[in-house]
């Protein structure tokens, strides 16, 4: 595994009119690492993801990506430099079909300038799209309108749409919430193996400790806006504070 530092935060803090949602967040993530973010409801996990990906501006502190300060960038700038995400509540185009969703995502990531004026449904893109649909096991649903899909399918699509942008680092906010127990491991197998192959660094928020144990290299546990434990999963899941504030 490469050992270059890809993401670093320094004294990151976020407050909403008095409520502190993130405090003194100091992390360092190495390229290729897979990190699980755990914590009870309201612990500040989503706020953390939102700050890294430009959805929220930190109140103070800084974020560095590949040695460059990216504090307070816009979401689309984050996407351009390779900081991508999925959402706790899937953000997909509900009125369109699965394939249309993915085609838009792919054409925006692969084309720029005047190429964006070319027809969206060209053969090459369409073939690549089918490949990804197969990989994510949503080929059968490709012509269904997204609003008719199950939560789990939407999550998968949401993740696939983030992954086609070739992220260097991907933040997944609860990729398996709302997904049935039988589907959970299937989804994570698909996603994690695809990302490992491309060497993408992954941070994912997860409530299911079985998933955490199985896939991550390291765990960051959040409690009341702070990181109370940052360690490999074996160690973290036995940590007293983690047991008391996260698992308890």
């Amino acid at each position: 595994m490469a050992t270059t530092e890809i993401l670093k935060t320094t004294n990151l803090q976020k407050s909403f009119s008095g409520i502190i949602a993130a405090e003194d967040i100091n992390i360092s993530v190495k390229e290729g690492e897979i990190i699980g973010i755990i914590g009870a409801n309201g612990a500040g996990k989503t706020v953390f993801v939102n700050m890294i990906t430009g959805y929220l501006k930190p109140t103070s502190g800084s974020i560095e990506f590949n040695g460059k300060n990216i504090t307070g960038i816009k979401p689309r700038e984050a996407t351009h430099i390779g900081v991508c995400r999925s959402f706790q509540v899937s953000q997909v185009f509900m009125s369109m079909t699965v394939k249309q969703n993915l085609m838009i995502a792919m054409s925006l990531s692969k084309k720029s300038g005047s190429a964006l004026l070319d027809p969206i449904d060209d053969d090459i893109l369409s073939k690549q799209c089918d490949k990804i649909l197969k990989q994510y096991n949503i080929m059968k649903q490709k012509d269904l309108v997204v609003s008719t899909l199950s939560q789990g399918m939407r999550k998968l699509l949401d993740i696939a749409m983030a992954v086609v942008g070739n992220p260097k680092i991907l933040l997944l906010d609860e990729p398996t919430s709302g997904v049935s127990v039988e589907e959970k491991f299937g989804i994570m197998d698909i996603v994690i193996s695809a990302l490992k192959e491309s060497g993408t660094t992954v941070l994912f928020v997860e409530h299911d400790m079985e998933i955490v144990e199985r896939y991550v290299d390291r765990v960051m546990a959040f409690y009341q806006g702070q990181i109370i434990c940052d360690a490999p999963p074996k160690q973290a899941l036995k940590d007293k504070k983690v047991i008391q504030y996260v698992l308890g």
Partner: protein
Amino acid sequence: MFKGILKEQTIQVGIGFVFIVVLLGTFILPEWMSNNFMYGLSRGLAVLGLMILWRTNLVSFGHALYYGFGAYAVAMAQKYLGVTDVFLRVIIAIAAAGLLGFVLGFILRRYREIFFAMLSLAFSMVLYGLLAKAEFLGSTDGMSISPSTMFGFELGRFGLFYFIGFVVILSLIFAHAYLRSSLGHLTTAIMDNEIRVEYLGYSVEKAIHIKYVISACLAGGAGGLMAAALGQVDPDSMVLWSVSGELVFVTIMAGLGNILAPFVGAIFFEFIRTYAYEFAPQAWQMIIGGTLLAIIFFLPGGLWSLFQKINPFKKEKK
């Protein structure tokens, strides 16, 4: 951008439609009827512009701003530069409206829903006020437009009709090329989920701005053609809020289903207006209002949905 576009069914049907309208208008129908076709075809461009915005849930209550600006650009080009060439007229109208749309777009692209609608209306009222006060442009009386020429020869009514048909076909091709492109697909995507579009790396505001300029160009082109067709521009029939209202009206009536719908709707509107005015000079607005109500209740997808029901080759939405 235009690769293979002439092979697309929407365009083939569109070209056929324009041909039929132009032939009917020039060879078969009496003049008053043919005028309805000519005006409907021209104003359909502005409705098309409105429809393109509408597909992103942006409704402009002030699109007569660009329609009137295009028309007055033709008037000013005639007065100060002596331009009567029909190509130049349309290009000037489109360019002027596009430029204005580009400038105002920086403001409007930040607004949505009712704020967007009302801000558009406000801008159009400012232009109305300016034009009504502008002595050098004939204030409320407006200006007359001399007959259009092409390569130095006078064009005549038929010639102008053909030319309008030509411009409409080009616009259909352009609009279709835009809507089928990646950028055009953002149209519905933005309406659906702006956050996702931003996270796909594209600026929602930029996409709306581009769309807004296209829409302004179409409305400006419509104004330029109407100035030439009517031989007259004046603030009340070109820029007043009621003109914008009519455009919105026709857009709803026509439906958003297809790029041809605006032209069908605009021609239909010219006809009901003419007939309503003839049969009930006092109550023609009531008849028009009643028509709209009937369409909203019985054909929620607009007139176009009627075509889709009886269409022999079921159309894809474009």
